[in-house]
């Protein structure tokens, strides 16, 4: 994974839009609970693979899109995504060198941190949702991380 000098922004945008569609696609409720945060995973992937194109800015604007679609307080998902993309961008070279399994563990940590920020803001805005269901997606997200990187690597490689 060599950071290419000019990663095409259009390609990044395409994957982000696809991930957004997957995130908002109506699903039956049992599937919805285990649905991984596709958009978050995609943004994390680009922050690690191509931090100059898909970095903190991408995280912020994807977060605003999530806020709009989720009907959350404007800035909630944006702040959470900004925070975890910052860590991902800062540590991207170290994370890249890890084997897939360890990367998945790091993603688990990142997704839990992401959900925790959302949880904290939920509490602050007076909508505490303490159901344990909200944490499940971190696990499924970490599980599909190897698959997601494989797919996104292909998207990135085929130019």
């Amino acid at each position, binding site marked *: 994974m060599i950071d290419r000098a000019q990663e095409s922004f259009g390609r990044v945008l395409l994957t982000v839009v696809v991930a957004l569609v997957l995130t*908002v696609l109506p699903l039956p409720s049992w599937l919805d609970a285990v649905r991984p945060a596709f958009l978050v995973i995609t943004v994390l992937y680009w922050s690690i693979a191509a931090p100059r194109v898909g970095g903190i800015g991408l995280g912020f604007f994807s977060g605003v899109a999530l806020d709009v679609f989720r009907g959350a307080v404007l800035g*909630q998902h944006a702040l959470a995504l*900004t925070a975890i993309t*910052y860590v991902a961008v800062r540590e991207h070279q170290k994370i890249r060198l890890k084997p897939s399994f360890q990367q998945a563990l790091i993603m688990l940590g990142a997704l839990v941190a992401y959900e925790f920020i959302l949880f904290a803001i939920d509490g602050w805005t007076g909508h505490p949702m303490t*159901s344990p269901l909200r944490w499940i997606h971190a696990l499924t997200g970490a599980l599909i991380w190897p698959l997601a990187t494989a797919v996104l690597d292909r998207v990135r490689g085929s130019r």
Partner: protein
Amino acid sequence: MAAYGAGNYRASQGRGPAPGFSFFLYAVLAIVLMVLDRRGGYLVQVRYYLSATAYPLQLAVSSPAQAWHWTRDSLTARESLEAQNAALLKQNRDLSMKLMRFDALAYENAELRGLRAALPAVADHWMAAEVVDVELNPLRQRLLINRGARNGVFRGQAIMDNYGLLGQTTRVGPWSSEVILVSDPEHAVPVEIERTGVHTIAVGTGDSDSLVLPDLPANADVKPGDLLLTSGLGGVFPQGYPVARIAEVRHDSAQPAQIRATLLAHLNALHEVTLVWFQDTHPAAPTRLKDGASASGNPALQKQPAPALELLPPPALPHLTPARAKPAAQDSQ
């Protein structure tokens, strides 16, 4: 360690701000957005346009399901259409019979109350809306419907189906609105028990066919089968619309009674809902609580955040809802 990582980033990129700087910038921006959105309602207009840009994608995402319903509807066999037609005719006849009686009762009621003339119905007019997107999970019970501010929809408007109360609009875009259902865990609807007239609050559970009544004391007079009507408090729903029926009452000693009610509205099979406009001047229309009104009364009610109050129309859309904007500002203080 941090310096090492940051330095590497700069070296490999050659230009652009350090990640720490852009993180700071975007984090501050996000926090400012949150404060503006939450505290002042300054972003109502922004959200209005954002929801308009999001709507095409939401429509596109829901289009497979819509296409499926359409295909199924158009392929419905003749017999089932005839059966449906017969059922509707019967329902229509039943309703007309009830209505005849209703007119007589309304007149009689007006007489009893000493009013000169029978009052007009509290519902002024209504509009059918199609459900574009459904979100029914334990954390959020929401709908997206295809009517918005262009159709005169306002925030905090009551949504019903043919069986009972469904919820209210929380966000209104130009062509679409988001509806929070009464079963959403963040939603609370002030109700009264029809048999006894006791007022309480029914809170959503995240399960799309039940509500709980957390505030009734252990010795409350509630029985399975009791009907819950909207009480008209809270300023969103008018008095007297059916919400749910008590399904289960569990008394544990010294604990508040655990009471579960089944929703009358059919949340699991929603394609169309009804938006209702009420006459503000009607006595049964929603009454708005004034400042401190909740300070008296049941202390158990006060520890409830009672989101129904917060979800009143926002103050920043005077051109949409001139009469409703002011009290909402008072309530949310």
